[in-house]
């Protein structure tokens, strides 16, 4: 199925859902005015479903709009969400963490053959060079949890050992001395401007009151000096351990290009090795940090 055919089916399905009243709003992607970039759109009128699109520029992970931060969207009524496999992983985590009930959202799963890393890179054709690491290793090109799937089955099988820049860089960092890693991260974090775009764009950062906003006492210094930046970035990464699905939104949103994917993917690897858990695949399994096993193995507690 081509993107055009998928768009057609998507629009028809959205119209049908809205007309029947099964959902009140369809959360999907649409064009900006110049039709050069995609942007999230919210369709409530069945006559407007032709605004929905699907192509390799649809990078946004729309699952963020299902969280309780978006009360005005929740007020619209039951949503249908257009989601790629990677976005569905986040919805699955939201379900396991009791933020969304499975029956309260209609998932329109889109078969996906990869997205661009950033929309600015798009030159009219999807080439491996402009795809993010997650797409090269994607095992959910065929949506794994969905009420309705659009697109022909993807034949892609991910490589056995993960490939891509993120994994190479993690390996390189792991091989370095601690002081080299420290210098690398302090340099990266020193650019942080504390805009919190990484937090806001993340559907798993759904706390209504973030730890950075707890100011009696101020746990995380709001100043964008290196110490405040380090504690923010460490805490953000820690709060996503066992939850992050490597959707890459935080790194994409970062206005100063901090390689947050490295931190997140490193921790995904740790969780996989230590607890044999990968987040976002099964809505019935508890996330690893809220459960435990008496047999958990470690070698550093003396």
């Amino acid at each position, binding site marked *: 199925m081509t993107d055009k055919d998928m768009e057609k089916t998507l629009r028809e399905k959205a119209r049908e859902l809205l007309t029947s009243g099964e959902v009140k709003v369809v959360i999907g992607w649409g064009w*900006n*005015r*110049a039709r*050069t*970039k*995609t*942007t*999230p*759109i*919210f369709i409530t009128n069945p006559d407007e479903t032709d605004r929905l699109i699907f192509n390799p520029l649809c990078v*946004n992970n729309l699952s*963020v*709009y299902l969280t309780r*931060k*978006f*009360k*005005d*969207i929740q007020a619209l009524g039951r949503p249908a969400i257009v989601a790629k496999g990677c976005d569905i992983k986040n919805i699955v985590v939201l379900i396991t963490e009791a933020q969304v009930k499975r029956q309260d959202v209609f998932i329109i799963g889109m078969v996906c053959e990869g997205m661009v890393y950033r*929309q600015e890179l798009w030159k009219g054709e999807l080439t491996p060079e402009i795809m993010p690491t997650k797409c090269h290793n994607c095992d959910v090109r065929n949506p794994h949890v969905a009420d309705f799937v659009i697109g022909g089955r993807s034949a892609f099988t991910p490589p056995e050992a993960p490939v891509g820049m993120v994994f190479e860089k993690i390996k390189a960092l792991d091989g370095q001395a601690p002081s080299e890693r420290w210098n690398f991260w302090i340099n*990266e974090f020193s*650019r942080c*401007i*504390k*805009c*919190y*775009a990484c*937090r*806001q*764009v993340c559907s798993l950062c759904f706390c209504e009151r973030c730890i950075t*906003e707890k*100011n009696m006492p*101020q746990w995380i*210094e*709001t*100043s*964008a*000096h290196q110490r*405040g930046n380090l504690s923010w970035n460490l805490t953000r990464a820690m709060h996503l351990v066992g939850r992050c699905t490597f959707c890459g*939104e935080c790194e*994409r*949103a970062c*206005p*100063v*290009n*901090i390689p947050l994917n490295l931190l997140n993917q490193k921790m995904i690897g740790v969780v996989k090795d230590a607890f044999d858990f990968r987040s976002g695949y099964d809505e019935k399994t508890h996330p690893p940090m809220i459960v435990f096993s008496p047999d958990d193995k470690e070698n550093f507690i003396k």
Partner: protein
Amino acid sequence: MKEKILRRSDIGRLIDSVGTKGGAFVAPALVARQVVFKAIKSADEVSFDYILARNSYKEFVFPQTEVVADFTFTGNKVDLRGREVEARDTVVFGARPCEATSLSALRAVFTWDFVDEFYTKREDTLVVMTVGCTKADEACFCTTVELSPESKSGSDIYLRETETGDYTVEALTDRGKAFVELHAGCFEEGDAKLKPLVRPEVIKGIDLGKIQSRLAQRENYADPVWGELTRKCIGCGACTYVCPTCHCFDITDEGTAFEAERRKNWDSCQYESFTLHASGHNPRDFQFKRWRNRFMCKFTYYPNKFSSKGCVGCGRCVRVCPVRLDITEAMEELSK
């Protein structure tokens, strides 16, 4: 007529000349795969191929974080010491005409009912060398807010690129003239063929007068259009942090029970906690209200209170937005 020329090959000398006189040279440079304003030491660092730096240069007059006072507790006594700002002569090379205009907006707010020396002392020693744009992208909309690549407001020195990659130099203000004189050895006289300026197209259907009058009507404050336009806003502050005219800050104390620093940090009206009252009440309880505030700040509060431009059309907020919320789309809608 001979014109004053700054050769590209002389920029290194200019940087050295500024450096030996104790000044800082700020220019667009490549940091982490993107062009940003940065204090630089050599001409090799300067990026010449850019449309706009990702950040605005406001952080050199209004730093993201700075200590304004510090204090120590001894017994029952508090010893509070204010800090004096020591502004270093700073020259910003490669600003664009749009963002140069923003300085008057910042100055207006920082000298409005109280003169904030932390800003004014820095701006008083700032020399802005603007380069007229020979490139633009789809996010540029200076012409829509009645500016253009030829706008000279806010610039001390206005440069135009020549076909050979050099610059013609036009010193506009006293500070700019003094700068050119001080570093006279770096400039020369000559003829130049100018590269044409690129003007972004005026976006059809936007009428600033109409926006203003519409925003002035109280009933439009509750217009459902705000909610529809900005539903996708995720409330990160990225737009406000890259905006050359946004200026909000927060005062916070950082330290221990014995000693602490009082810091002035950037803040953003896009955050929920920005207007959160101690009582728990929040007058801007939904994201669209926060976004509406930023829009009104740019298009009515500023023009009305300070007769200055709140929005200079640089398009940074459009480029940086993770959900591609385009302020010009809102301007178009509110021009109706």
